[in-house]
């Protein structure tokens, strides 16, 4: 899964390490937070737990997507 080589020796464009510094870490951290928040609201909110209290609008709105994307629902 992680270890594959290229046969193309002349243009061996192995990927370099591209990250460094606090800035990069902050950007990545923020992006992960955003991704996880979206994942949560589409898949989980107003099911097992709820951010907006006892309401089902988020759940009902993305209801079909939630089922189809594999999350437990109902």
């Amino acid at each position: 899964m992680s270890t594959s080589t290229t046969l193309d020796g002349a243009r061996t464009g192995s990927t370099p390490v591209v990250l460094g510094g606090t800035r990069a870490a902050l950007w990545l951290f923020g992006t992960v937070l955003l991704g996880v928040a979206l994942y949560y609201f589409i898949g989980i909110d107003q099911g097992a737990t709820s951010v907006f209290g006892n309401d089902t609008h988020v759940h009902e709105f993305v209801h079909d997507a939630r089922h189809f994307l594999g999350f437990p629902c109902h």
Partner: protein
Amino acid sequence: MERHFIVRGMAVGAIGGLLAFLFARIFAEPQIQKAIDYESGRHTAQSALDKAAGLAVEHEHAEPFSRAFQGNVGIGVGIIAFGIAMGALYAVAYALACGRTGKVRPRTLALLVAGGGFLALYLIPFAKYPANPPAIGHEDTIRERSGLYLLMVGISIVVLVAGAWLGQRLQARFGTWNATLLAVLACAVVLGAVMLVLPSFGELSANVEAYGHHATETPLPLRDAQGRIVYPGFPADTLFAFRFFSVAAQAVLWGTIGLCFAPLAERLLGPRPDTNAAPATV
């Protein structure tokens, strides 16, 4: 550099989500409608049984969004937003994998990371807790089911990342091919053990109490007081079609992410064909 990755990752995630939505609109929605029709037919049969037995009949409550809205707008927004979320996480995983996964070309790495995302965030959890259409699932177990599903997703991510690390470690001794096979085998053994240990949804205590021992929460036939079947169990063909299309839609999503990100990554990271300069430094 990381910003380039993130912007492109979210963009390809949105494209993948859009394609997965179109797929879902055409193939999944009819199955969802069949499941909802089954559910309401079953509800009617249950009401008739309750009435005959002199029990209070449950009334269905109004829903805030119409079926047409859920099946066109809701599913579109949900899947596209999910695609953007996956694209964002994908970009982060890709940026972290760069330079840490051996001698791999940027576009090969793009496909490998997409494959890993598909497996860890969807297919492996699906193997234990598959996607269910509406009408399947008991309301009183939603907490446990969500917790178990997320646990399975989390374990899958950890195991695959550990597998990638293990493959790197073994590579010097066994070579790329054998190290990859060994790492895959190790992942399969650990994940198989986890799936054996975690309970099936039908074995949750609330379900065993109410319905006895069953593997899943898929509705069984409805029987009257004499034990005659008055309404069938959930149609197996609908269940299969729904799950098959669910897997296919995620394959579309992750395939699009990998294939669209690959040339972008190659351009960002790869050697420039027109100069002899070292690979773009960042």
